[in-house]
């Protein structure tokens, strides 16, 4: 019981911090309005579930006769892997673009110098 309570408090604190960070990123225009609303909803849902975990537990147990933690752990792992994959792809594409740009710029510089000579 105490462990469940501690976990709930931790996840609420974590979600509140994330709401704050999301807010900052929105103000800095790193996130657009759709992203902002989406992430805020995610953190609010996490807070709601943390406050009343038995609500979701009861729903799954009565409707699907499955343990919520079992479902959540599978969904979490899949989500993490998918998010990691897309982030990695995005980073690789960006890295490639930046490298090409910087190399092209350096080459242009020396070729212009050689032309002037």
């Amino acid at each position, binding site marked *: 019981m105490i462990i469940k309570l501690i976990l709930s408090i931790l996840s609420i604190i974590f979600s509140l911090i994330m709401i704050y960070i999301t807010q900052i990123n929105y103000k800095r225009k790193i996130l657009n309005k759709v992203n902002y609303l989406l992430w805020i909803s995610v953190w609010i849902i996490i807070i709601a579930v943390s406050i009343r975990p038995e609500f979701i537990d009861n729903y799954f147990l009565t409707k699907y006769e499955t343990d919520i933690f079992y479902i959540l752990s599978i969904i979490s792992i899949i989500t993490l892997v998918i998010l990691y994959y897309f982030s990695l792809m995005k980073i690789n594409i960006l*890295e*490639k673009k930046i*490298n090409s740009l*910087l*190399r092209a*710029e*350096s*080459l242009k*510089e*020396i*070729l212009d110098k*050689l032309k002037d000579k």
Partner: protein
Amino acid sequence: MYDEVLVTILAYNEEKKISEVLIELTKKFKNILVVDNNSEDSTRKKIKNFPVFLIKHKYNLGKSESMKTALEFAKIKKFKYLAFMDADGQHKTDDLEKICQKIYKNRSEIIIGYRKNLSLLNLKKRIGTIILQKVFSFFYQKKLFDIQSGLRIFKLSIEPKIYWYSSGITHYFADAEITCNAVKNKCDIDQIPIETLSSEEYKGMNIVQGLYLMIMIMYWRFIR
């Protein structure tokens, strides 16, 4: 003076050795390119005293990307051969000359210099080099002594066969990838012994990077 060869030196904070290396190189080679990876010391200042091409990257893009810059420059200036040499003075100009002479004389498309005396390396690096050599021989069915050697020359005409995709500033896989691609795509490859510097002066990989390279050797062989 090897007019058809572009000798490339990839430099990053090499102020201690770069002048020494360039003094020796300019005696024997006409076309020298230094790719500076945004050095924070006086490397660039020192390079400017020599009659060499200097390309400056605005950020440190790592060895692989610098090699690509050199490749693009060599293609634009229509050189026939592209040679690479380390900027830290671990390679001798005489050895570079040897590999140039060899590629001029015979039909090889790529020549790699290998460290003939591994006993000068410390135990960890010696074991690492031997394991990599064995793994490479097993998967590629070819005996090459130093797949990662930074002293090498190749014909620009084989570029599509050996083009490398390694990038990043934390590891130096481009040399190994070029070797693997060359063997996989049946390029005419040769190797000659070169002098080895003591391990204190040699910047190498750590164990994790060595293991990662081993996985990449398999990846380049079977997946790419």
